C-alpha cells in the first residue's frame, strides 16, 4: 500500500506530519497491522521535553507491549485523548483519528534520519 505523501517516517514505524512549528505523530498502518488489536496507549505528559528517537510511551496490543518512540524532538503540546476510551482508533485510522501526540519544534524541524514515503515503503516491503 502507498504511504501518505505528506508524511515522514521513522524506522521504528512512526509517522510525523510537520505543520509550521508543530509536528503530529502516530504509528503507521504497517505498525498497527503488525501489532494487532490495540487495547492501550500510554502517551507522554503535556509539557514534557522529548528528544528525537526517545521513548515516550507504550502501545499495547492484546498480546504485547511495545515502546513508542518520537521521530522528532521538542515539547509535547497535545495528546490524543480519544485513544484513552477508544485505543482501536489506531487500528482503524492510523494516519488520521489515531494520531498520538503533537510536538512543538523548539529548535526547528530536525528531520535527520527520517524516511520519505518511498523509502519507508521500501523498508516495509523487505
Amino acid at each position, binding site marked *: 500500500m502507498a504511504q501518505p505523501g505528506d508524511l515522514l517516517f521513522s524506522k521504528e514505524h512512526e509517522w510525523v506530519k510537520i505543520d509550521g512549528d508543530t509536528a503530529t505523530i502516530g504509528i503507521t498502518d504497517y505498525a498497527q497491522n503488525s501489532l*494487532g*488489536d490495540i*487495547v*492501550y496507549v*500510554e502517551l507522554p505528559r503535556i509539557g514534557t521535553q522529548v528528544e528525537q528517537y526517545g521513548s515516550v510511551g507504550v502501545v499495547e496490543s*492484546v498480546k504485547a*507491549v511495545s515502546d513508542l518512540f518520537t521521530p522528532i524532538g521538542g515539547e509535547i503540546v497535545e495528546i490524543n485523548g480519544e485513544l484513552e476510551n477508544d485505543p482501536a482508533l489506531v487500528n482503524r485510522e492510523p494516519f488520521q483519528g489515531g494520531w498520538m501526540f503533537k510536538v512543538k519544534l523548539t529548535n526547528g524541524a530536525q528531520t535527520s534520519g527520517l524516511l520519505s514515503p518511498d523509502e519507508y515503503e521500501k523498508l516495509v516491503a523487505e
Partner: protein
Amino acid sequence: MTMQAPAAKRTALYDEHVRLGARLIPFGGFDMPVQYSSILKEHEAVRHRAGLFDLSHMGQFILEGENVAEWADKLTVNAVSTMKPGQARYNIFTNERGGAHDDVIFYRLPEVWLLVVNASNAEKMWAHLNANLAGSGVKLTSLHGRNALVAIQGPKSVEMLRKHTGVDIAALKYYFCVEGSVYGKRAVIARTGYTGEDGFELFVDGADAQEIWNNLLRDNEQGGLIPAGLGARDVLRLEAGMPLYGHELTEEITPIQAGLDWAVKLGKPEFTGKAALEAQKSADEYARIVGIVMDGRAPAREGYHVFLGDRRVGEIRSGSIAPSVQNKNIATALVDKDAAAPGTPVVVHIRGTAYGATVVQLPFYKRSQ
C-alpha cells in the same frame, strides 16, 4: 557438522493456516497460528457463534493395559480408577513437592486411554511417563505430531457439527467422549474445551485433518464459524478462569495454590506429592492464585508486582483485556494469603506507576446455560 536449532514442526493443517493468512509463531515446537483476522474478532465469534481451532501441537499419548487406571492414580492428583468408558477427566501429574509436571485430560475409550498433555510439556511428559512404566504392564504410544486435534468451540458448536457426525453429539454430556466419525472419517469426539463455551474436540488422523477442517469452515460459513488462533484461546481461557501451565501451574505452583482443590483427591491411598499437598492444605499459609480486575485502562501483564499497601504480596501470572468482562483488564496473580480475599484492594506496579486493582473470585466469566 554444524549445530542448528531444530526447525519448528508443522501440523497437518499448516498449509490451511498459511492460506487463511494466519500469523504463525513457534509454540510447543510447532509453527502455530496466533491469529487469523484479529484476536478480538475471533474471541467474539467463539463467545457468540463458534470458532475452529487447530490444537494438533498438543501431545496425544495412548495408554493400554489392564492397570492403566491404578498406575495413573499413583502419578496424578485426581481419580482415574472411577472413570467409566466414555468419560473424560481433567488431571494433574505432580512432583514430590506437590508441584505440577503438567495438567492433562484423560479420555477413557472402550479399549484404550487417550492422554492429552500440553505441547510445551510433551517431551517432558513422554520422559516422565516412560520413567514410570517399569513393571506396570502399561503400554505407552505417542501419536504426537501424527494425529491431529481440531476443536470447534462456541454456543453454535452442536448445530454446526451434528449434521456431519456419525453419532448423536447433542446427547454427549460435558466431559464425555465417543468414538465416531466426522465427514465419514474416524474421530474421537469429546465434549471438552478450553474456552468456557460449549464445544467439541475432534481427535483425527493427521491425513484426514485438512478435509475435516475445510469442510467445517465451508459448511458453516453462513453460521459464522471462523478459524481462531492461540491468541483468542488464551483470552477465552483466562476469562473462564482456566489455568495455563507455566502461568497458574508450574513445577513450583501446586494445584492447591492454583485453587484446583476440587481435582485433588486426598482420599486416594497414595500418589506422588500427596504428603506435601496435604501439609500445604492443612497449614493453609500458602501463596495462592487469585483473580485481579484492574480499576483503569492499563493492562496487567505477567511478572508485574502486586502490593497490599506498601508490602509486595505477589505477582501477576497472566493478564489480558477481557471483552466478556465489560472490556476490563483482568489478570491472575499469585499472592500471599492475607491479600487473597475477594474484594481486597491491591496495587499493581506498571512501569513504575501504581495502579489500583481489586481481588475477585475466579472465574471472571461463566456462560449462561
